[in-house]
């Protein structure tokens, strides 16, 4: 699914997406401060473990991505989190691949980062935790759709015969998007209630005082 293996993608796609992913990682690393480093690491570990738990759906199997949650909580910091987790999944479990690392990072992290940029401020300023959760659920559905589109585009540009079929994509990504929405909505509404500052990728200096 989102883990495209080695040997399928063409060189122009690998180079292009690799360069974009490297740019995203650089942007994310520049935004890191002392407060963000442990958080990026924790969410990278959550993503690493969550995307290993797959459930058979239809002819295929799907797993959580949590890119919406990561985008909201980390902003551009989602890129370093995803690249580290994907590199370890490729090295330890043979999921995805090292040459396709850039493509897979871009497919997962970019939709999440964009959700964080567009919906993040609305979620942080939401009138109630439930509303924040609902917005996060919507953001997760959009992030999953963005990942599906990215995977389809990368395969179409490299090997048109492997382009995912719309029917199978609907069968597997739609249930995933719904489960992802429920999980992300629950996490974000919970955080909005108990720890609203967790939803800010960066705090202004006067806010960043020990609680």
């Amino acid at each position, binding site marked *: *699914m*989102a883990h495209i293996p080695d040997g399928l993608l063409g060189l122009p796609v690998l180079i292009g997406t690799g360069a974009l992913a490297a740019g995203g990682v650089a942007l994310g690393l520049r935004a890191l401060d002392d407060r963000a480093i442990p958080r990026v*690491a*924790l969410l990278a570990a959550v993503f690493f473990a969550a995307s290993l*738990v797959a459930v058979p759906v239809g002819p295929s*199997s799907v797993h959580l991505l949590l890119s919406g949650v990561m985008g909201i909580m980390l902003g551009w910091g989602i890129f370093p989190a995803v690249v580290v987790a994907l590199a370890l999944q490729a090295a*330890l479990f043979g999921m995805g691949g090292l040459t396709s690392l850039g493509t897979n990072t871009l497919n997962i992290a970019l939709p999440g980062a964009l959700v964080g940029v567009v919906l993040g401020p609305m979620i942080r300023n939401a009138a109630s935790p439930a509303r924040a959760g609902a917005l996060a659920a919507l953001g997760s559905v959009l992030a999953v759709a963005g990942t599906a589109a990215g995977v389809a585009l990368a395969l179409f540009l490299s090997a048109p015969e492997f382009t995912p079929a719309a029917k199978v994509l609907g069968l597997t990504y739609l249930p995933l998007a719904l489960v992802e929405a429920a999980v992300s909505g629950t996490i974000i509404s919970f955080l909005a209630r108990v*720890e609203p500052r967790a939803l800010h990728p960066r705090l202004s200096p006067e806010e960043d005082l020990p609680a």
Partner: protein
Amino acid sequence: MIRLPFLLLSLIFALCAASPAAAHGMKVFAKVVGGEVSGYGFFIGGGRPQGVHWSAAMGQTALAEGQTDATGGFAFVAPAQITAPVTITMNTGDGHIAQATLGPERFGAPPPPAAAKAAPANSPALSSSAPPQGDIAAVVEAAVAREVAPLMERLEQLDARMRMTDLMSGIFLIIGLAGIGLWARGRRK
């Protein structure tokens, strides 16, 4: 901010407890027994791709294609002449694509002249009723292929196994990287 790491850590450990049961990434296992190539696709950690498209090709020549059965299996008759490695490709249609390649050495005995050359020059003369060397080699190859098929299958599964130790190493590597990052930032100040 103290509660957030606790919440996330408990989420990680809950996921770790669940993950060995089911995981991701597709692989194809293929074996050659008695002139037939068969095997199945499987998701690392559990599950089989059912009713998905598979195809087999020798170099650029298409050999066979079809849909996997309820156990993710496929089978086709091996070609008589192997001119290039045979590649079996499985595609679930949602971006999961896996391949297995069988080299020419997996398809039974070498051609008869090579087998004859391999026999010692001073071997006792065969009686007229004994089968020719080439036939014996083919029978032995088929028997060995049948015997080692379960072993090959087990090796493939072990190779793709998701180990709890790997999972924990991954998580602690990430935490270690964060420590290095914090140390490097602290040094710069």
